[in-house]
């Protein structure tokens, strides 16, 4: 779960990492108590808000009012701004980059830092990014921190402060089961001291059950995706018009790919997983119908899952509630023949192979 900047900063504060004085502002009254100049920052779960006009300075109350009303409610890459953070400006002497993320290959936490902060880390040349890997069996050690800090070209006292921040964000990263903690920029202030000007904190969804203090806030999902998530169905809305239902994430992806091959375009990714429970199938189909695809493509491989059982679920939905778009099916594996019979009986179109079914679906969706 990606936390909004302000919530990441709440966690920073909890771990003793300084952040600028600030607050969420809902209206003009909330400006009182903040000293000018301050910055108004759109809270959106996506990068690039600065360029999109989601960050504006306020030198005085007039600025603040104007800019606040511009930012609140604006659309940034599809996300409507519903929260604005106001923060007092800080005098910056130096900007650094600092993050901890997951290295999938080494299966370790990866600390990255750079003396070139404030810009997109992808645009910083590799030799200016310093890395240390933390083995989970030992956790963070002094040598990791020394290894990074010694290369950032800092003065001694600055180095000590940055070292403390690294140790604290590692603690946060580990204790909150994060996928990512990023501070960009981490600044050295003109009057000394180190401060996090931004925050990106991303918590592993699978670990949310043990962080009950973090209120879930599913900002990246569409309403239908939220609904699916609550029902425990893997459901993603895409840009096309063909709704794909398959069993298994890999097979579902491969089905979308197959459509593309025939110039079709997937509009929904719906992975049934290992289930052949007719009730679950029914829920999935209902969700799919709400997404209003032009065509539904049901691609099943029955391993442990019995195809006939899934087919029964599908037939039940269609018989009871009808369906207003064509459904193409391709069925393979366990109890394949029975399933095909059931589906034909329900009036669905059956493809012979994956290719055949993908082509039929694509043609119908055009």
């Amino acid at each position, binding site marked *: 779960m990606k936390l909004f900047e302000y919530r990441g900063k709440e966690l920073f504060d909890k771990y003793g990492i300084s952040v600028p004085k600030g607050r969420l502002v809902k209206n003009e009254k909330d400006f009182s108590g903040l000293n000018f100049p301050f910055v108004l920052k759109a809270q959106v779960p996506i990068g690039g808000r600065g360029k999109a006009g989601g960050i504006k300075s306020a030198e005085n109350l007039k600025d603040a009012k104007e800019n606040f009303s511009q930012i609140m409610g604006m659309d940034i890459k599809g996300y409507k701004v519903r929260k604005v953070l106001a923060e007092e400006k800080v005098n910056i002497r130096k900007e650094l980059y600092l993050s901890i993320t997951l290295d999938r290959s080494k*299966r370790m936490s990866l600390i990255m830092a750079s003396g070139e902060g404030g810009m997109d880390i992808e645009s910083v040349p590799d030799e200016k990014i310093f890395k240390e890997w933390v083995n989970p069996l030992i956790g963070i050690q002094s040598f990791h921190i020394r290894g990074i800090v010694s290369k950032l070209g800092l003065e001694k006292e600055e180095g000590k402060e940055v070292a403390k921040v690294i140790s604290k964000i590692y603690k946060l990263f580990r204790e909150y089961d994060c996928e990512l903690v990023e501070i960009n920029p981490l600044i050295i202030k003109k009057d000394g001291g180190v401060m996090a000007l931004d925050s990106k904190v991303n918590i592993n969804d699978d670990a949310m059950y043990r962080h009950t203090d973090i209120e879930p806030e599913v900002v990246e999902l569409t309403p239908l995706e939220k609904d699916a998530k609550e029902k425990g169905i893997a459901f993603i809305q895409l840009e096309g018009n063909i709704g794909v239902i398959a069993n298994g994430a890999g097979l579902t992806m491969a089905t979308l790919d197959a*459509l593309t091959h025939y110039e079709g375009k997937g509009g929904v990714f719906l992975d049934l997983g290992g289930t052949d429970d007719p009730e679950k199938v029914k829920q999935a189909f209902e969700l799919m119908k709400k997404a209003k695809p032009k065509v539904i493509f049901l691609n099943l491989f029955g391993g442990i899952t019995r195809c006939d059982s899934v087919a029964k679920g599908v037939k039940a939905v269609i018989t009871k509630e009808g369906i207003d778009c064509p459904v193409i099916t391709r069925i393979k594996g366990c109890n394949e023949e029975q399933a095909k019979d059931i589906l034909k009986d329900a009036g669905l179109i059956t493809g012979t192979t994956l290719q055949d079914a993908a082509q039929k679906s694509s043609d119908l969706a055009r």
Partner: protein
Amino acid sequence: MAIFADKSNKVLVQGATGHQGIFHIGAMKEFGTNVVAGVTPGKGGQEIEGVPIFNNVFDGVSETGANTSLVLVPARFAKDAVFEALDAGIKTLVVITENIPFHDAMEFVHYSKYKGAVLIGPNCPGIASPGKTKIGILPGQIFKEGHVGVASRSGTLTYEIVNSLTEKDIGQSTCVGLGGDPIIGTTFIDSLNAFEKDKDTKAVVLVGEIGGTAEEEAAEHITKHISKPVFAFVAGRTAPPGKRMGHAGAIIARGKGTAASKIKAFEKAGVKLAKFPTDIADLVEKYG
């Protein structure tokens, strides 16, 4: 021969008395797997399909000589279960459980290395060496004994591919489901090394998907160290960036992990790529 799993595996099932446990103990025994014990705390003394149930892994190991564990416990108990198995002396672990926090997985993957154990998964369907053993939830009927090794990040997609191989009468030496999570114990490279050494394996099929750089690393490894022919399918060519495509590991993040990059790497390494999963069998027939 086979890799990671053969007739010598004496399998203990952790989470044996649940719905899944009961079903798969039966299915594995039917496949020929030597299932010797089950473990569910508090249910010691019962029997499932003739297999004795113990309260803890240590007792199961000392009573039955189990050397392998199939982990089916819920995600929040998985780390504890894996640690318990490793401390009890289990040397091969297959972790089926999905949705394990990846910090937990990081810990137990490294702890299994410390213990010198092979850990497959998590979030995987398991492993099958046709004619020998099956440890996991893969459907037994799709396999056929033979000489193609399969290693895959996806479950159903693997079944689809294996099934199409079998339909063309192309048997398999071992099929390993590596798991769809970002952190997994056994990788493409581990599998490639094992297949390379395995006399019974003549060609290898890799089933990749978006997310991470495992395919790119495998490709580089193939160029340097693998002499046997390798075939691959990569799922997710049309997946949008930033979305987790069903598997926790299947995500294009910050421009990394695209199918295009993986396909390019494989092509560079001389790996033959299939457009559709069911095409793999044709390629193997033609070039394998």
